[in-house]
């Protein structure tokens, strides 16, 4: 039966054999990946490698959000879009590539910009969301919606020679053994002044820099979905939330720092979570005019 998440077909055993052989995955782990629904918001430099590795690993349902079209200037870093697809909707171009990679999985296209009108209902259909967007307003929007939808958020960002990675809102609800994880707004309650923001278009970006963060986002997603993979890491994160910094310039090129936990008076974790809607929240006003939220 197609789409069955209680067993695997012979060709799935073959395809995923090299990861299923690991005790941290096994049959139960592969079925957990197959059952999982993961949303990727933004199909640019971060979303491209993240989508490729998650599709290859056999995530059963992958949602793809982007309202942009493929441009020639994307191609030096957005490796799932080809030159032949210039001008095509990014969700369609991505779907074409991911389908060629793995026909066993379900791809759901969301060919629109995420906004305060559609964000919550889009995220509510998924188990994990990856924020692969590229400006402050959408980053607050995705995080707020993840808090309301109660799903973990894998956050990545990059510019020029540097990248940053964080797993937020994880767990989305406090458990017996772990406090609720901080959201983006817990960490950064106020947006940066508009004049201090550089986008990849303005500041430039190296492909492998954003690529390495995108691949690590796929890895963090798999760790959320496969509990056996995070035992050790969990233990050492009791002190706070890890934040990974990459710099192509420096040696060592990676640095891991410890961030605060959830903030008691966080607007998203309290008011928004209780109200269960973003519809009256003005992201443009909040972040200033340089980052209108309707442009992903």
């Amino acid at each position, binding site marked *: 039966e197609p789409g069955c998440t209680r067993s695997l077909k012979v060709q799935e055993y073959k395809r995923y054999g090299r990861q299923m052989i690991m005790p941290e995955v096994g049959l139960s782990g592969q079925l957990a990946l197959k059952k999982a629904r993961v949303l990727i918001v*933004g199909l*640019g*430099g*971060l*979303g491209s490698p993240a989508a490729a590795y998650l599709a290859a690993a056999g995530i059963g349902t992958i949602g793809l959000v982007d309202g942009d079209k493929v441009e020639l200037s994307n191609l030096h870093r957005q490796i799932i879009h080809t030159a032949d697809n210039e001008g095509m909707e990014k969700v369609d171009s991505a779907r074409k590539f991911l389908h060629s990679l793995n026909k066993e999985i379900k791809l759901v296209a969301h060919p629109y910009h995420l906004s305060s009108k559609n964000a919550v209902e889009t995220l509510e259909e998924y188990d994990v969301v990856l*924020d*692969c*967007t*590229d*400006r*402050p307003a959408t*980053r607050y929007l995705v995080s707020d919606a993840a808090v309301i939808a109660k799903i973990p958020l894998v956050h*990545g*960002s*990059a*510019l*020029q020679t*540097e*990248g*940053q990675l964080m797993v937020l809102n994880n767990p989305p609800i406090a458990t017996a053994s772990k406090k609720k994880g901080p959201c983006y707004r817990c960490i*950064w*309650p*106020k*947006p*940066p*002044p508009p*004049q*201090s*923001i*550089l*986008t*990849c278009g303005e*500041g430039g*970006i190296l492909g492998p820099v*954003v690529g390495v963060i995108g691949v690590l986002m796929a890895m963090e997603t798999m760790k959320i979905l496969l509990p056996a993979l995070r035992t050790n890491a969990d233990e050492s994160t009791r*002190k*706070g939330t890890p*934040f990974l*910094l990459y*710099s192509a*310039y*420096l040696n060592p090129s990676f*640095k*891991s*720092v*410890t*961030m*605060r936990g959830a903030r008691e008076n966080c607007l998203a974790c309290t008011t928004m979570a209780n109200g269960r809607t973003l519809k009256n929240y003005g992201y443009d006003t909040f972040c200033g005019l340089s980052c209108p939220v309707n442009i992903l």
Partner: protein
Amino acid sequence: MDTDSKSAQGLPIVVEFSGGLELLFSNQRKHKLSLPSRDGKGHATNMAYLVRYLCDNLMSDARQDMFVVDDTVRPGVLVLINDADWELEGEHQYELKKNDNVLFVSTLHGG
């Protein structure tokens, strides 16, 4: 006397900038500084002192609001003391110790 001699010895620390903030500080990512160990009022040198000190003495760019707004580090800049968020350490009130490493990182938004 004791206070003076301590202050004369100085407080060696390392300050690093990342995520584009280095552009405001002569495009140099790592700075070794020696601060007085007590401020003008005789209090131990803390993070509030350091932030003022950086604006007054180390910043090479005139755009102070790219680093400081309302007398504190602007929103979107993380401050890490020995690799931990300064919110875990007391923020401005944290008293600097010998060889502390303070990292200012601008949050990135690109993707």
